[in-house]
């Protein structure tokens, strides 16, 4: 009797083992883990972009992997990384070990992505970062290629390029201000949320603003979640600034834009305001965010290339809003993964990585080419510049987000002018003109 029970237990255990191992060897789908803060706009972007990509790829029959057609199957994981980095690492561990995904896309906060990156590397899973901008994520690849080669940056380009683009946009607006207001030099106030990622940008701005022929009149650092910035606004106004260089990724971006707009502060806002990149900004500021300018990736009516409009309009039709940059999960899956897997004929990361490293491919935001560092080591970081990714400068004009940069932009002396399709002229707020124009 005992022997029969033992035999039964062994059979049961074997059955369990086979069932749990089944997806690993009998799957007809490519499991893609989509990880992000799913209760927030950023996570929704991750998921929506990936959903659109999966629908498009599966609608065409799937991905040709060797002799087999495989469908894309998405696995959603809420990283909750705004509140708890540990939740993010747990979610990453779960989708790899329990859901057995083949690769992962997503992540937003650098602090969380660095931790999630390590877990993905432990399991040798390809992880495409679609949110965090810190260079360290890719510096790790160059420094320890054997361990970190499974990580690629999907979007946005790194923060060094972000700040470079900001300065170019500031210079563009500065020239317009000088001409429109008839002022000899533009005075700039920096208003930047208190966050680690902002600190290097402030240091760079302190050095670069005088080089652009502008005068830095003060730096204000409100909290990321400040609900009243009227004291800061009063102080900025007192400084006589013509331009406010904003660096906001959190809710303070709405507070500042709304209150500065309502108080008709005679200074233009240029820089990064993540909340202003979203369709909901106009409603969130109750229209007071008019004329706010921010760096962005997508804008309805603006085309970096022929892939932009179909993606943006398709996204708007499917989800009712303009995609934000975290929706670039679409870009990676459709334009990055599928061609690479089809070329490799396998899902084996070791064979896929060399193909991904060498590919140069067009996406709705521009052309992607992965960089190497000065020593020729792979960084898996995105190339910035004309012909590659540049991002956009967008401005809110009477309830509509419009593209204002690059518009006749020359990347260097003698270089050809770059203007994306759908660009419109930058507008100086009328109350600013009224305040300075004598």
């Amino acid at each position: 009797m005992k022997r029969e029970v033992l035999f039964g237990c062994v059979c049961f255990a074997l059955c369990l083992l086979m069932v749990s191992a089944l997806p690993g060897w009998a799957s007809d789908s490519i499991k893609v883990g989509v990880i992000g803060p799913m209760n927030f706009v950023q996570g929704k972007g991750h998921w929506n972009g990936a959903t659109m990509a999966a629908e498009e790829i599966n609608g065409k029959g799937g991905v040709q992997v060797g002799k087999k057609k495989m469908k894309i199957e998405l696995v959603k994981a809420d990283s909750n990384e705004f509140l708890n980095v540990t939740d993010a690492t747990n979610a990453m561990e779960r989708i790899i070990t329990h859901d057995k995904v083949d690769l992962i896309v997503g992540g937003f906060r650098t602090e969380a992505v660095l931790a999630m990156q390590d877990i993905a590397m432990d399991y040798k899973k390809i992880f495409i970062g679609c949110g965090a901008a810190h260079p360290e994520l890719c510096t790790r690849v160059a420094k320890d290629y054997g361990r970190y080669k499974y990580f690629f940056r999907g979007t946005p380009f790194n923060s060094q390029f972000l700040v470079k683009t900001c300065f170019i946009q500031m210079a563009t607006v500065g020239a317009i201000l000088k001409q429109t207001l008839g002022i000899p030099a533009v005075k700039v106030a920096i208003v930047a949320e208190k966050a680690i990622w902002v600190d290097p940008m402030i240091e760079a701005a302190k050095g670069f603003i005088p080089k652009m022929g502008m005068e830095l009149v003060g730096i204000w650092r409100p909290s990321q979640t400040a609900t009243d910035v009227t004291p800061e606004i009063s102080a900025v106004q007192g400084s006589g600034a013509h331009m406010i260089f904003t660096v906001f990724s959190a809710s303070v971006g709405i507070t500042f834009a709304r209150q500065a707009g309502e108080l008709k502060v005679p200074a233009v806002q240029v820089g990064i305001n993540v909340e202003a990149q979203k369709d909901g900004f106009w409603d969130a500021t109750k229209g007071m965010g008019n004329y706010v300018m921010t760096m962005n990736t997508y804008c309805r009516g603006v085309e970096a290339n022929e892939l932009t409009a179909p993606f943006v309009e398709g996204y708007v039709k499917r989800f009712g809003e303009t995609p934000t940059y975290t929706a670039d999960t679409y870009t990676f899956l459709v334009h990055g993964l599928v061609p690479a897997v089809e070329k490799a004929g396998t899902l084996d990361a070791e064979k896929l990585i060399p193909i991904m490293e060498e590919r140069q491919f067009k996406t709705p935001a521009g052309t992607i080419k992965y960089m190497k560092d000065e020593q020729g080591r792979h960084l898996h970081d995105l190339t910035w510049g004309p012909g590659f990714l540049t991002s956009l400068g967008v401005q809110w004009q009477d309830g509509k987000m419009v593209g204002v940069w690059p518009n006749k932009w020359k990347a260097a002396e003698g270089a050809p002018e770059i203007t994306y399709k759908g660009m419109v002229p930058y507008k100086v707020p009328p109350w600013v003109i009224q305040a300075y124009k004598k």
Partner: protein
Amino acid sequence: MLLDIIVSGLISGSMFALLAIGFSLIFGVARIVNIAHTAFYMIAAYCIFFFTQRMGVGPIPAMFMAIIIVTFLGLIAYRFFIEPIREHEAAVLIGTIALAIAMQEVMLLFFTGDFLSVPSLLEGFFSLMGVKIFFQQLLTFGAVLTILIALWLMLMKTRLGLAVRCMAEDREVANLMGINERRVAMATMGISVGLAAFTGAVVVPLTILNPFMWMEPLIIMMAVVVLGGLGSLKGSFIGAYILGFTEALVVFLIPKGAFLKGSVALSIMILVLIIRPEGLFGIAFEEER
């Protein structure tokens, strides 16, 4: 700059005062440290958003509806959750933290983490000696003063107010004198949560809604209450303005350290407590009650 600091300090101080007095009231009467106090403020703000933006209700009726709903919610929470554990102060403390987090998660579920806002009751601003002041801020300031006067009249001129003050002085003696301690505590909870809801209602057009908006005011409110002396309404009122002006001073005098305004305010609280552990208007020994 001086006028900037005065205006800014008065407005911030008034909002702190409204929150802190509600918190202090229920602590003084029932010894309940209600950490969920600012979560009720958050719920009121979301109620107004829901009624005005989703249901098309006017802002004034939405404010009243929000205050009534949140007060009712507070009373339910008190009756079924706080009252059974009332005598165990640590349990109340932890329980109300859990309650606040539960409310936050429910809001996150219904409204997601998106940043939302509602329009001002009065749009625009006016300039006072070069300082721009929102009409909404002025309205908020006026509303806060009105409510504080009404609260003072209630406490000083009504039988309920007398009972509340008796309870705050000495619960046991009040009980022996025939005051229905349970009922007074319940009424005080209603007033306290109602004040939180009112604060949410008047502040919502000036702020950004998200499910975590209760945390920041909680810290500053606790600081105000401790600075003024736990349970002292006068202390909360004065403490609120001290911290309001401190914050304004930091922003105007140390622009790069504007994010430190909360930390400086908390440092002042610590400094006062070192010199006077019971707070500015607190009672030195529990036995004195």
